[in-house]
């Protein structure tokens, strides 16, 4: 597996910071399991903010992979 694009990581981190707050975005790999603010309401905001930021539309079978910085970056790199 190739190394993640650091620019993509930075942009995803910025979206997560905007929705979840700066402290969440500073974690190594913020995820639904490690960030209490990442609840079902925030999940919605993250989904649509990512789609706007990256001008993509995640397919239905990818939606449940959006649960951590790492899995989001992986999903975006396969778009």
């Amino acid at each position, binding site marked *: 597996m190739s190394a993640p694009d650091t620019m993509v990581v930075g942009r995803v981190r910025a979206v997560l910071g905007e929705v979840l707050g700066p402290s969440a975005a500073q974690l190594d790999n913020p995820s*639904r399991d490690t960030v209490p603010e990442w609840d*079902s*309401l*925030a999940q*919605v*905001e993250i989904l649509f903010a990512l789609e706007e930021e990256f001008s993509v539309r995640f397919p*239905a079978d990818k939606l449940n992979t959006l649960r951590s910085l790492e899995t989001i970056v992986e999903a975006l790199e396969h778009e």
Partner: protein
Amino acid sequence: MSRHALRRNGERFGLRPVADEDADFIHGLRTDPELSRYIHPTPPDPAAQRAWLARYYERPNDYYFCVIDQVTAEREGAIGLNDVDSAASTAEMGRWILRCGSLAAAESALLVYAIGFEDLALDRVYCRTVSANKAVVSFHRSCGLRVTDEGRQVNLAGVTYAVTEQSVDRANWPEVAARLQRVRTMAVGLLA
């Protein structure tokens, strides 16, 4: 006892009329400090919730639902359409409260809007949220609701808050439904 017979089943969650046996569950949610910061204060005595339900059953313009996980049969929360105005063809989506960690937000909203537009034939459903409750205001915005009023205020336990009114109308209901269906798919996937 129940006041109406409207119900909707979604992919994972469903709505059924609130009944007397839900009173203690709803009271538990509404007195949870984590969940009740931006709602009207609820008396500490659970009997008050049962009395409130008895009065609700008598109101003709009010539809209150329990949100059910159809797989586990557990209750997830409650949601309602209140102040249904037949002349204006509007209602407020309100009394929305879900247990901590619930993934029923999108599907419960989708189902209650479907009841509003398809069963009750409304032209507009609005949500009035304390503006400081940024998570809920952002959720509605992300789902495609439009801000229709920012001039209202509400007093909760002696504190006055600004209120944001966001609406879905018949024209943008298909777009909002499409967005909520995608989010619902995501939530159901996270539960799988």
